[in-house]
């Protein structure tokens, strides 16, 4: 279709009035507050541990000091604080400062009483090959103590389907915000995929299936600075192995972990986020363990965003020495690794080596992704598998996606739906 100059002018004349124009009155609003003539002398966050507020936000709040007071700027920061602390009501209060004609700005956080006994639904995922996986948790906060009772029924992360109960105690402030204590106790029953049971008959070296498992894992974490967390602890697993006769076995391990995360945003609106973890788990005779092995796990995530666009690169790897029970073997092909593959087609018994990478691009909630990974046992040939997919991913953790394994035969897509934070 040819558009003449006259038509273009006509179209412009029609469309320009529809363009949203900020009125002069709107632009005048920031100066409308009479207190904008006063300088901010100090800022304060009350009602919540400083460590619960991100460093980036605390830095931005601190930037108010020395500037003229702006209730709009304070409101924007309060909105960000509400996002970070969804269980709190946030109120901004400007008060007279200690010096004349100066103000103190206080961000007051108040825990909502009904959220003290809130039921949380951590990751809930429907995977067309695995079915529904989810946990239901009831955390009760009493000061820095958090008691969590939960029910778990999940098949997503491991080769087994776990169903049972969970109890967790966390002390978020052992004398200082930088020291935390945590005790986990899980008691679950297991169900196994026939592919795993059939594969076990072929590979007798891999430890067998069990029908129940109890885990007790105390740990202590140190946060030397905001973005780094170091954890040490132990994990006592007892499980009732079914074959050749029913008997109880143990995997008692020392554990250690490092978590690093950092978010930053440049003045031109470029957002970057880095997450990196390393977990070590070593089961030893010293702790009277039946299984002796060492398990290493690394992961790294990087996301870069600007406006409504975001790209992400994710990597994870695992290595084991010794003979680990099935719950500590690596597996790929679930709702977050090798999406599109069925983990029982990839490796029904998992492996003691694993490497996985993923790339994704998002525009608003629309997402496309590519996964590549391999899981294998020492001495075996590695075979990298690839998958592609697309879907919707929302800020509140909701997602729906369709993923396809990249292979020549029997390309059956996997549908996934759920919430994951």
């Amino acid at each position, binding site marked *: 279709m040819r558009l003449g100059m006259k038509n273009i002018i006509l179209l412009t004349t029609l469309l320009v009035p529809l363009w949203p124009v900020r009125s*002069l009155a709107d632009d005048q609003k920031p100066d409308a*507050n009479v*207190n904008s003539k006063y300088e901010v002398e100090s800022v304060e966050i009350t009602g919540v541990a400083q460590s619960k507020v991100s460093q980036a936000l605390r830095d931005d709040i601190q930037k108010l000091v020395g500037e003229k007071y702006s209730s709009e700027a304070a409101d924007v920061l309060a909105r960000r604080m*509400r996002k970070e602390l*969804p269980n709190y009501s946030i109120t901004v209060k400007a*008060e*007279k400062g200690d010096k004349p004609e100066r103000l103190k700005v206080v961000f007051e956080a108040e825990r909502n009483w009904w959220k003290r006994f809130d039921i949380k639904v951590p990751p809930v995922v429907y995977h067309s090959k695995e079915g529904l996986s989810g946990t239901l948790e009831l955390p009760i906060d009493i000061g820095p103590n958090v008691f969590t009772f939960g029910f778990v029924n999940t098949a997503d992360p491991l080769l087994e389907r776990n169903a049972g109960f969970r109890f967790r105690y966390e002390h978020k402030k052992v004398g200082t915000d930088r020291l935390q204590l945590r005790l986990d106790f899980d008691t679950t029953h297991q169900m196994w995929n026939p592919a795993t049971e059939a594969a076990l008959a072929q590979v007798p070296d891999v430890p067998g299936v069990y029908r129940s498992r109890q885990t007790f894992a105390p740990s202590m974490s140190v946060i030397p600075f905001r973005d780094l967390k170091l954890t040490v602890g132990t994990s006592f697993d007892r499980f009732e192995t079914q074959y050749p006769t029913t008997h109880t076995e143990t995997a008692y391990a020392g554990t250690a972990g490092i978590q690093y995360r950092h978010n930053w945003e440049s003045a031109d609106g470029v957002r970057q986020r880095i997450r990196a973890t390393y977990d070590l788990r070593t089961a030893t005779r010293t702790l009277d363990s039946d299984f002796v092995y060492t398990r290493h796990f690394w992961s790294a995530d990087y996301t870069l965003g600007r406006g409504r666009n975001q790209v992400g690169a994710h990597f994870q790897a695992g290595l084991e020495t010794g003979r680990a029970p099935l719950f500590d073997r690596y597996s790929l092909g679930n709702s977050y690794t090798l999406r599109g593959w069925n983990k029982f087609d990839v490796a029904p018994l998992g492996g003691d080596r694993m490497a996985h990478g993923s790339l994704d691009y998002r525009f608003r909630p629309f997402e496309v992704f590519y996964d590549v990974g391999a899981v294998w046992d020492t001495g075996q040939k590695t075979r990298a598998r690839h998958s592609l997919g697309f879907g919707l991913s929302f800020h509140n953790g909701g997602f729906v996606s369709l993923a396809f394994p990249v292979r020549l035969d029997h390309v059956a897509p996997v549908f996934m739906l759920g919430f994951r934070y």
Partner: protein
Amino acid sequence: MKYGRHIILLILIAGPASARLGAQSQSLQVEREGATLRVSTPHFTLLEGKPLEQLHNGASVTYVFELTLTPQEENAPVVRVKERFIFSFDLWEEKFSVVQQDSAGRSASQMTAAAAVAWCLDNMQVATRSVTPDKPFVIKLECWIAADGSESGSQNNSSLTLAGLVDVFSRKGRNPPPRWLAVAGPVRLTDLKTKGKPKT
């Protein structure tokens, strides 16, 4: 007593209802000033409760004032004037300040609460040219707080929690923002007191 129970029930129902009506609707004083009308309401207590608390916390609160003139025998107003005023409270001077949110951007400061409201009403001029002088009309002043989209709470709750759902479902049930109403009339233009020469 035979009707005792019914009377108590009636008092229980009517009491709060009448108190509510009393709190919402007040009388309006109207004066003529040349070709315009000026309104005042001495007991219009806008600056109280949560909005006042916000102002004392250093925030701005935008009030919308709407004046309508409706002929007695008609339903639709013949004149409608709507203005937005941004109130703030000087934390050091402990006085109110108001900025009219229009292109002129008129403002006044160092005022008491009553003076601040009176200043807003002073800046709402209603032209009388659309009103027939000898026909009675009702003049109504309505005032409410403009939504600023910065409600507290957890609207952006990023996790699926019971409280999140409670938030979502309870939002609808929250109290509506306060509205104030003052009414005068029916009056005739010719019956109104004249205030003198119009201001320039």
